[in-house]
């Protein structure tokens, strides 16, 4: 009997062994609730990239990938529950796709030693890796976005926007308020007047804000919205005949979902981005062959090539590249979360690497280091073509105003370090 039990136990251990060596990537997704229309394409892109790596390459460095999807409903409490439920599975990196969840998880992942990547969202000052050792926000953050918008407005005004009026229509939440400080500092530098127009959640009723815009006719409107707020804002802008080419949204206000309900009226609307659009890349041919045609696409398989699908795919690609870097650094395929953190901190994305991955000119080049967890702050501007039904990048990638942003990041991260009792450093 004893022998039988021992054999069974050994068998169980041996059977479990390959699972232990899997690379676990949790996906905190939201396929339900008011923000599902945005959560679904991102989650599909994220999942499909890992499926592609498993099917085509056998995983990363020979280790198969296991993705655990957990539904957050874009709800912070549920997001934290998902984290608690999945962290024991050997999760290598969290990407919660929610600024609220990111803020809640910052102390938790730091104490648990698991890296978190908030790509284009979350706490901006997490760029300072000396303070936020487990948090990464490359390739761009909200303050980069604010600066990109102003730089673009400067460009189309021959470098002079003094005396102009710029309105910020923002979601009245921690997320929406993120760019205010940066825009105020940039207003001091460039001499424009900043007009702040908060919109309460969820943003279905914005008449007051757009009547004010109609009365005061700002030269440009910048939008920091999410979900229904975006569609209503664009429709209201169309209603008051605000020029679309003077209306710029952050990258979370720049998907097909945001512009399509307004129809032809949305033509010319601009949005910031840190990645390219469409499916005209070699990688998508592999995706078609190994994932879509094989019937292994996530969800309904109908989101391929949309803006948020590409963003999810890009997020997964960056996670996979960091895992590869970690495997090289530690000379092992079976990496731990701590090793993954090292890989993320040593990540360098070059155009050559992107071309090798089948994504030439898809995203900006950047380099991560201990001091800089946010990359180089490059972004671009895209414009919606309503008749063609697609987004087109109308600028090259350009860098944010580091002269203004660096002191802000330093001040905010140091305040956090003091509050949390963190000794900044790279050791």
């Amino acid at each position: 009997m004893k022998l039988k039990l021992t054999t069974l136990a050994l068998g169980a251990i041996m059977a479990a062994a390959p699972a232990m060596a899997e690379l676990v990537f949790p996906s905190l997704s939201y396929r339900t609730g008011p923000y599902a229309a945005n959560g679904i394409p991102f989650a599909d892109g994220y999942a499909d990239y890992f499926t592609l790596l498993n099917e085509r390459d056998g995983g990363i460095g020979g280790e198969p990938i296991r993705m655990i999807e957990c539904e957050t409903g874009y709800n912070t409490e549920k997001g934290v529950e998902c984290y608690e439920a999945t962290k024991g599975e050997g999760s290598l990196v969290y990407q919660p796709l929610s600024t609220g969840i990111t803020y809640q998880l910052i102390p938790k992942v730091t104490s648990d030693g698991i890296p978190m990547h908030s790509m284009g969202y979350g706490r901006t000052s997490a760029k300072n890796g000396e303070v936020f050792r487990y948090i990464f926000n490359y390739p761009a953050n909200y303050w980069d976005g604010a600066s990109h918008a102003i730089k673009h407005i400067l460009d189309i005004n021959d470098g002079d926007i003094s005396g102009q009026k710029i309105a910020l229509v923002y979601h009245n939440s921690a997320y929406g308020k993120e760019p205010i400080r940066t825009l105020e500092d940039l207003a001091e530098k460039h001499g424009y007047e900043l007009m702040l127009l908060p919109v309460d959640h969820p943003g279905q009723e914005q008449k007051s804000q757009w009547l004010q815009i109609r009365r005061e006719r700002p030269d440009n409107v910048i939008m920091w919205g999410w979900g229904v707020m975006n569609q209503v804002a664009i429709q209201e802008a169309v209603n008051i005949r605000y020029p679309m080419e003077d209306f710029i949204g952050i990258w979370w206000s720049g998907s097909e979902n945001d512009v399509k309900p307004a129809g032809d009226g949305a033509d010319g609307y601009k949005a910031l981005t840190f990645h390219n659009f469409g499916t005209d890349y070699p990688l998508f041919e592999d995706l078609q062959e190994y994932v879509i045609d094989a019937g292994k696409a996530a969800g309904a398989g109908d989101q391929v090539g949309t803006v948020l699908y590409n963003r999810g795919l890009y997020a997964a690609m960056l996670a996979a590249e960091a895992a590869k870097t970690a495997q090289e650094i530690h000379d092992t395929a079976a990496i731990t979360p701590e090793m993954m953190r090292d890989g993320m901190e040593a990540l360098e994305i070059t155009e050559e690497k992107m071309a090798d991955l089948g994504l030439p000119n898809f995203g900006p080049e950047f380099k991560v280091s201990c001091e800089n967890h946010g990359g180089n702050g490059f972004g671009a501007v895209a414009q919606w073509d309503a008749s063609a039904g697609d987004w087109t990048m109308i600028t090259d990638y350009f860098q944010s105003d580091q002269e203004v942003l660096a002191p802000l990041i330093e001040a905010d991260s140091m305040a956090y370090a003091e509050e949390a009792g963190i000794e900044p450093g790279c050791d």
Partner: protein
Amino acid sequence: MPEQLLFASEVFLNGLMAGVLYALVALGFVLIYKASGIFNFSQGVMALFAALTLVGIMEGRVPFSHVINATFDTEIHHFGWHVPAFAAILITMGVMVILAYCVQRFIFRHLVGQEPIILFMATIGLAYFLEGVGDLMWGSDIKKLDVGLPQGINTWIDETTFDAFGYGFFIDNLDIYASIIAALLVIVLVLFAQYTKQGRAMRAVADDHQAALSVGISLNFIWIMVWSVAGFVALVAGIMWGTKSGVQFSLSLIALKALPVLMLGGFTSIPGAIVGGLIIGVGEKLFEFAIGPMVGGATENWFAYVLALIFLVFRPQGLFGEKIIERV
């Protein structure tokens, strides 16, 4: 006319229009509460479900296509036809009647005589169920809804006010149509309640269930009818709000806009819902215009509730609600 007064007048008019849209949502709550004493938490989701169904029928989408495709490994999404808006509205109305029957048959028939809080809980369950079914039936992508209602600035008002005051007022065409439709809806509802046999039966049930039963009125039929009418009101609200923002799952949150209207106008009065909607709409817009900039803006959501609470202090039953007198 001074510039600020002109702006305030424009805000006032837009507040009235917004109030009509709030009232449209509140009307559905009132109808069900009045006839059955149920506070229908799912009214917002019913508006969403109705709008989703309408778009689905108009675009010829196959309901539950994701489930069918995943189960049978097929690629079916559309029937290949488009249904004209008017016909689609009629079909959607039929779906809402079937929904009303199912709600009555499978939920509330089994809960007759239960405490109001139990009935309220059941409507919470119904809300989540409907949201899930809507998602499964039609998918969770954002859908453009175009039933032919015009949107954008009304140029006649713009030009006329510009000629008169030197400042053109902005009034959205969609809001004007919503106001006309809401007015017609209220007239039809009042006529129905006052002058038809079914309407009188509905009022009798609202006054006293037992007495209505004793004279041979079928409670089942009346409640199915009331839920159907509430479904129709939800469809109208769904069309108006869905045209503004596209049909998407946050449409269900419009119910939050109806709560202060109900607190103010009373839960049992159709005119109360309209007047309450107008007061909330105008009040929140004028407050945002006058005080908003001093306190950082975004006052509309909380101010609507503050306004309703102030009214509650003086008239707990709401402006038009029935005064509750309980004798020991």
